[in-house]
């Protein structure tokens, strides 16, 4: 491997930047609000106010205004606009945009440095998880006893949908956002992503979309479930238009990010970094990005058609007009199932990376691992209708979809094999990343097995729409993906901050969250077995004990996440100091100083082997 120069002497902030010198998150919000109001005003005055879709039309235009205004205000259009004028960015402009020497201010701006974007993603993800978590706590509090005592059913129903979508948004980016950005380019030996401005765009677009999504709560909520099936979504107020616009905006963010990831990985690897020497985490990102590019356009289509139905008298999904809700359901799940693998695969890649480093052994059967990730990605495109087994749509397709869904258990099993094989007879360093990884293993096997139950149609005929389903996917989302995300955070935290995430607070948090997950969701499986439907604000007396247990468990999870938050905050500046390579790893991100210099490498490294030869004793640095 190669060495890098030390941190350059602090110099002045570059002269360039133009308009961007005055733009940041505050100007973005301000411009977004102003444009939203303008668009609201214009649409309010010019559209037919007696028409049935008037409210939806105005709401849609208002959201478009917010989106455009935010982009203008944050400075996303500066580059293209100047290119149109023939005054493209100079090198000084680029350095300004990359945030050279700007200190903390650059985290509030449209900064192109992938490391800044990575940290911004951490903050955005934590905020989204916080909002989603609060909604979950409100819901679980309502369910602590039968009868509906805490919030009325309309508020509860709205919380269900927003909790769902906010958490989905957060989990899609929870690993690919922070670590696909901060770590991955350095892992490849690159100086930044292929399209640094698009990278900043994808982050700020996510912020813009998330604002619309959470803002739904302020405009009447979304009491129609996060799947926004037609026809029930027809009954929602303007909250549904906000939701659809949030999704369309988010789809821009995710498409741009996927393209950026793929181009970077396939064209910007440093010399000697063949595909066989790629860290396994990068393969996780590759297949996540490909799957995302395949899947999200379906969501774009579904939401566009829903908006058209709501604003323009079309009837794609309205049965009284000749359409059918089944079309919406199919389009949604064509996206929805690959989406959960978009959520899972980065965690898979990150955990294999962590397992190898912390066991001091190579990834077991590297090619098989890549094959399993590819198979998971490919097969996930073929299973979507298992969400529709009981919808009454195409009963003859039940068998084929049962087949494809059960087949997915094979690459999932192979992933377990690779993970276990990596740990087998290793010298497993029991630090925070490792601990969360073991928690992942325990939870993912339960989440996976219960998924197989649901893939079997006779079982699904009983369990579909019950809390059994909810418990299954929470074991995957909370028990597996979130555990993987926290493992990744603990693993790469020293590279971002130069400090360890507090080992003691982290362990307290782990045990609280792990025990909380078992109590909450095992009890929830039993609720479902007993016959409790999902998405309900109250329930029969039959389910009171299991729900009480689930609520207590939820409070325990919340306590654990509070402790984790405190750990992150206190460790960021005051944690135990760590050197540039505290885990003794071999991938390139550990070969640069902490924090990494602006363009990562002064001289690009030349790679001669994969990062999994641990047989040289590594001096802790």
């Amino acid at each position, binding site marked *: 491997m190669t060495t890098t120069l030390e941190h350059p002497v602090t110099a002045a902030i570059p002269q360039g930047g133009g308009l961007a010198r005055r733009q940041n998150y505050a100007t973005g919000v301000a411009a977004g609000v102003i444009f939203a109001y303008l668009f609201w005003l214009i649409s309010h005055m010019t559209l037919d106010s007696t028409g049935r879709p008037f409210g939806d039309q105005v709401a849609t235009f208002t959201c478009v205004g917010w989106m455009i205004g935010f982009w203008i205000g944050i400075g996303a259009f500066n580059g293209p606009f100047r290119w149109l004028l023939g005054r493209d960015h100079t090198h000084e402009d680029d350095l300004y945009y990359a945030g050279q020497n700007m200190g903390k201010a650059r985290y509030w701006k449209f900064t192109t440095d992938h490391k800044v974007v990575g940290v911004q993603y951490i903050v955005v993800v934590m905020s989204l998880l916080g909002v989603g978590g609060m909604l979950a706590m409100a819901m679980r509090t309502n369910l602590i006893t039968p009868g509906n005592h805490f919030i009325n059913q309309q508020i509860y129903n709205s919380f269900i949908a927003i909790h769902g979508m906010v958490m989905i948004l957060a989990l899609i980016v929870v690993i690919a956002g922070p670590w696909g950005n901060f770590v991955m380019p350095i892992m490849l030996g690159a100086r930044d992503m292929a399209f640094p401005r698009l990278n900043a765009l994808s982050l700020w677009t996510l912020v813009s979309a998330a604002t619309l999504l959470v803002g739904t709560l302020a405009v009447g909520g979304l009491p129609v479930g996060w799947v926004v099936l037609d026809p029930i979504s027809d009954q929602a107020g303007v909250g549904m238009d906000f939701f659809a616009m949030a999704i369309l905006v988010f789809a821009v963010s995710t498409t741009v990010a996927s393209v950026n990831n793929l181009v970077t990985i396939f064209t910007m690897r440093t010399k000697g970094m063949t595909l066989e020497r790629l860290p396994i985490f990068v393969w996780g990102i590759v297949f996540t990005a490909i799957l995302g590019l395949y899947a999200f356009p379906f969501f774009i289509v579904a939401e566009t058609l829903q908006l058209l139905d709501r604003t323009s008298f079309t009837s794609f999904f309205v049965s009284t007009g000749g359409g059918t809700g089944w079309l919406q359901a199919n389009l949604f799940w064509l996206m929805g199932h690959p989406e959960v693998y978009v959520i899972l695969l980065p965690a898979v890649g990150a955990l294999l990376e962590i397992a190898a480093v912390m066991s001091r052994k190579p990834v077991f059967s590297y090619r098989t691992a890549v094959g399993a990730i590819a198979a998971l990605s490919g097969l996930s495109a073929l299973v979507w209708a298992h969400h529709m087994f009981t919808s009454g749509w195409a009963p003859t397709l039940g068998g084929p979809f049962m087949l494809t869904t059960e087949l997915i258990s094979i690459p999932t099993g192979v992933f377990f094999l690779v993970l276990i094989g990596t740990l087998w007879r290793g010298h497993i360093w029991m630090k925070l990343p490792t601990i969360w990884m073991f928690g992942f293993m325990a939870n993912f096997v339960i989440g996976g097995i219960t998924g197989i139950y649901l893939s079997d149609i006779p079982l699904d005929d009983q369990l579909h729409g019950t809390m059994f389903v909810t418990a299954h996917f929470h074991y995957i989302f909370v028990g597996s993906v979130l555990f993987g995300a926290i493992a990744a955070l603990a693993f790469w935290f020293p590279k971002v901050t130069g400090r360890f995430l507090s080992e003691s607070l982290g362990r307290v948090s782990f045990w609280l969250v792990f025990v909380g997950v078992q109590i909450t969701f095992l009890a929830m499986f039993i609720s479902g077995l007993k016959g409790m439907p999902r998405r309900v604000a109250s329930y029969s007396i039959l389910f009171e004990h299991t729900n009480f247990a689930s609520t207590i468990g939820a409070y325990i999870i919340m306590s654990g996440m509070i402790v984790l*938050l405190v750990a992150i905050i206190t460790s960021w500046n005051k944690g135990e100091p760590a050197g540039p390579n505290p885990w003794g790893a071999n991938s390139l991100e550990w070969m640069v100083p902490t924090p990494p210099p602006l363009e990562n490498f002064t001289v690009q490294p030349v790679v001669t082997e994969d990062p999994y030869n641990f047989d040289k004793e590594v001096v802790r640095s």
Partner: protein
Amino acid sequence: MNRSKSLGIALASVLVIGAALGLAGFALASASPHQTPLVCAAVQGQSKTCSLTMATYPDSGEGVHGKDGGPHPDWVTYSNDNVILPANSTIDMTIDQYDSGGSLNDAFFDQIMGTTGGTATIDGKTVTHVDPNNVGHTFTLRNIPGSGTYLFVSVPLPADPNTDNSVVLNGTHYNKPVVVQFSFKTGTKGVYEFNCEFPCGGSRQGQFGEAMSTFGYMSGTFTVN
């Protein structure tokens, strides 16, 4: 950081942040829209009986949703969304129906169901069902699973035939209402939910949007104590 110090920090942070969240939750619960409760009035000389009067209006202008009819002055509404009843009692209910009507989309609801005797008295006449093509709203009450005993009452409220504009409420004129009276028995303590089953609420499919899906207009809670 040693073990006991970190456990101390963990405990302290959970307690502090937990308390803050608890306060927020309390604020949320108090802010849940709920009108002042209407308590069923005891009837002189009859134990275990009380009388309750509600109404259905063609708009929200009569004061329940605020001075100018609240955020949706043109939405139809019940007079109350929060009623308190005694347990194990007979409830003599009167509903003044001020709204016009039309044809039920499910004729199932033209029956009187669950009342004492299976009948209701409409403007003095006792009936077991009404004309399904001339219904204004329905009063359909059910128990929430997990709360209270089984109870199902459904009474169709006929469309108001009067056109005399003779009643003034909160400055607005309404026609004389059609008066519907019936009785039913409550069981044990619990939470019960009522809503109208004749949709008229704006969306293209099923008309269950707007007032029909917004708590406090065409739906509400009966609490039996």
